[in-house]
């Protein structure tokens, strides 16, 4: 049987090296071809997971704890599919984007390919030290991409992002050191059963706290969100789309993995409530700030802060004593992750086109955009539908599952937060749409943009909308592993 796992690790690294060899600004075609191959490999892997269930893969043939193990299950399959499906249209978008605006293209392609390699490796890893290395790979690629735009604003944002993410990795690695000291292993496969079987020492509590805090910093959960809007808002649009849609999901994925596979014996209801509370605060605070922004990309970035909050609501809901409620909470959280990734990629891509056309990132300049770029605006609105959680979008299914879980458990507070969050996201989406439907201001000229720039955003938004009809497949893959 053909095994796609090793190729999913090696190939993106090879693409990255080759794109660097090709030189400055080169590698777009390579990235497109490479991504198609990887998407095919991912589909093969997802089918294998769906048929045969989760499995381990021993790199080097040593096996844990001596060697490094990889582990793929339904969750891994969903994440791998997601990153490839989101990135492929963005590659087309980025090629067109950088042909209009060369600023920031420098080493965009190798950096992007390494970013993908890092995420592939991260999602499949079952070794907490290996995960640390992939996290660093991911962070440095992301920071390099943010800084590539090359003026003072993005660079200040990149410096702040770098320092925060290094602090997060440091806290995480300290946790790894304590766990190694306690159990003598860094493999999740070995540590999981050990933690469940032995008495938990204070060192493990401290390790869990440090690792969780480090990852929360990287995921930008309120109140650690301060670095995100400048970094995502000032990067070139294709970069913003990649970062907002995918990169923060990687550290969230790790929180989820560690929470269930490693620290399950330590998890208590107050901790879960705390995470949920921070998530609720993020939803409200992020949405309000998004509404108050005057720059379009900053608005979209603050909307990311808010949408991350929904993901964390699944922790308290998972602790509910009713099994159905807990299950639908997990499903809702994962649907939210997938739907938000697609919608946010679409939204940033659309915002990038509008900013390119208006010449400046300012919501007030959008008047008349509805007649100039109808397709892009439509894509923006469709993505907005997912963020608000209106049917038939993927966001609707996500929020429906989460709300029904909360209702099932009688947790009315979370229900209120989610409904209020939906209304607030409607407010900031309509703020943009209303401005765009105003008649054009006399004397303001929009630059024409290439058609190929408009389609990827529309495609992504459409997938996020149609996700609502095909959510069954995703949820069954998720449960299959």
């Amino acid at each position, binding site marked *: 049987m*053909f*095994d796609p*796992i*090793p190729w999913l*690790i*090696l190939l993106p*690294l*090879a693409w*990255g*090296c080759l794109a*660097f*060899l090709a*030189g*400055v600004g080169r590698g777009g075609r390579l990235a497109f071809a490479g991504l198609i191959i990887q998407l095919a490999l991912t589909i093969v892997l997802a089918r294998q997971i769906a048929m045969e269930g989760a499995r381990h*893969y021993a*790199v*080097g*043939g*040593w096996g844990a*704890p*001596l*060697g*490094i193990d990889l582990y793929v299950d339904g969750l891994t399959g969903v994440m791998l599919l997601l990153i490839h499906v989101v990135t492929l249209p963005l590659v087309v978008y980025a090629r067109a984007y950088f042909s209009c605006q060369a600023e920031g293209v*420098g*080493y965009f392609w*190798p*950096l992007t390919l*390494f970013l993908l*390699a890092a995420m592939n*490796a991260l999602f499949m890893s079952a070794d907490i*030290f*290996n995960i640390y*290395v*992939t996290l*660093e*790979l991911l962070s*440095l*690629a992301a*920071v*390099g991409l943010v*800084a*590539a735009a*090359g003026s003072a604003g993005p*660079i200040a944002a990149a410096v702040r992002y770098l320092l925060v993410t290094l602090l997060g990795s440091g806290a995480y690695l*300290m946790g790894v050191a*304590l766990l190694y*000291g*306690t*159990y*003598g*292993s860094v493999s999740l496969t*070995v540590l999981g059963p*050990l933690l469940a079987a*032995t008495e938990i*020492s*204070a*060192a493990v509590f*401290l390790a869990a706290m440090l690792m969780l805090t480090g990852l929360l910093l990287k995921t930008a959960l309120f109140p650690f969100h301060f670095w995100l809007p400048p970094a995502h808002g000032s990067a070139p649009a294709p970069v913003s789309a990649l970062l907002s849609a995918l990169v923060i999901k990687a550290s969230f994925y790790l929180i989820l993995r560690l929470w269930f596979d490693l620290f399950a014996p330590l998890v208590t209801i107050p901790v879960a409530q705390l995470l949920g509370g921070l998530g609720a605060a993020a939803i409200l605070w992020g949405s309000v700030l998004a509404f108050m922004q005057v720059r379009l990309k900053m608005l979209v970035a603050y909307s990311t802060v808010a949408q991350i909050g929904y993901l964390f609501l699944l922790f308290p809901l998972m602790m509910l004593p009713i099994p159905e409620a807990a299950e639908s909470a997990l499903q809702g959280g994962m649907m939210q992750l997938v739907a938000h990734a697609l919608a946010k990629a679409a939204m940033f891509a659309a915002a990038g086109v509008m900013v390119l056309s208006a010449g400046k990132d300012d919501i007030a300049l959008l008047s008349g955009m509805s007649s100039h770029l109808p397709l892009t605006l439509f894509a923006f609105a469709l993505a907005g539908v997912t963020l608000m959680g209106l049917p038939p979008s993927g966001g609707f299914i996500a929020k429906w599952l989460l709300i029904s879980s909360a209702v099932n458990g009688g947790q009315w507070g979370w229900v209120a937060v989610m409904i209020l969050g939906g209304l607030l996201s409607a407010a900031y989406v309509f703020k943009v749409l209303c401005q765009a439907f105003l008649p054009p201001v006399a004397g303001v000229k929009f630059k024409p943009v290439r058609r190929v720039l408009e389609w990827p955003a529309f495609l992504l938004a459409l997938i996020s909308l149609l996700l609502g009809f095909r959510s069954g497949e995703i949820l069954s893959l998720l449960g299959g592993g």
Partner: protein
Amino acid sequence: MKNLFNALVIVLFAVLGLTLIWVILELQPPTHVHLSKQVLTQLDASGVTHPVTAVLLNFRGYDTLLEVMVLLLALLGVLAQIGKREQRNLSAWFRLSQPYLQVLLWLVRMIVPLMVLVAGYLLWVGGHQPGGAFQAGAVLAAAGVLLNLSGVLPSWAEPAWNLRTGLVFGLLVFLLVAAAVMVVASPGLLLQYPPASAGMLILLIEMGLTLSLGLILAGLFLFLSGDAIEDEAEK
């Protein structure tokens, strides 16, 4: 307000520090897994006799592969920052105008060949005693930095294809070895070297890595140190 925040942070982390120390002193030694023993029992199959090298390039060779990518990635980030500029030889001119550098130059001429020899030696002994690609690469990089400081080697500008090839050469060797092993020797298994040829393959990878690590680490300095000259030239 600001002072209050600072005091709060200091108190918080003082508590964290004391807790950490307490936890470390309280901790019982692990009773379940004894990895260092496993390393020693499997050492024969790894192809090298120095345990750290065995872990670094065989048992946990995957970490090393990713780690070298981290280094290349940092260099890519640096390259994105230096922008487009032409390679200038101002460095030598600028730095040689200072008399004490003449002495340095003379010293460097003596030391650098020695450093290259040391790097080669470190690479070679890595298989059975302390040393290996990372240390050898670091020594090579240090030689490059010294050459730059004494004005012999100009700072680097946007790398041309030959320098780019050098920078990724080691990584490509690593990837090619991994792919070749996966296709030929142990189908579908990542980085699983056959014990008989493991030593040779590891040495091959280490040779490539030494070159690339030396160039990348030196590049971190040589690409950056050009900034000052660029500003000089602008005036």
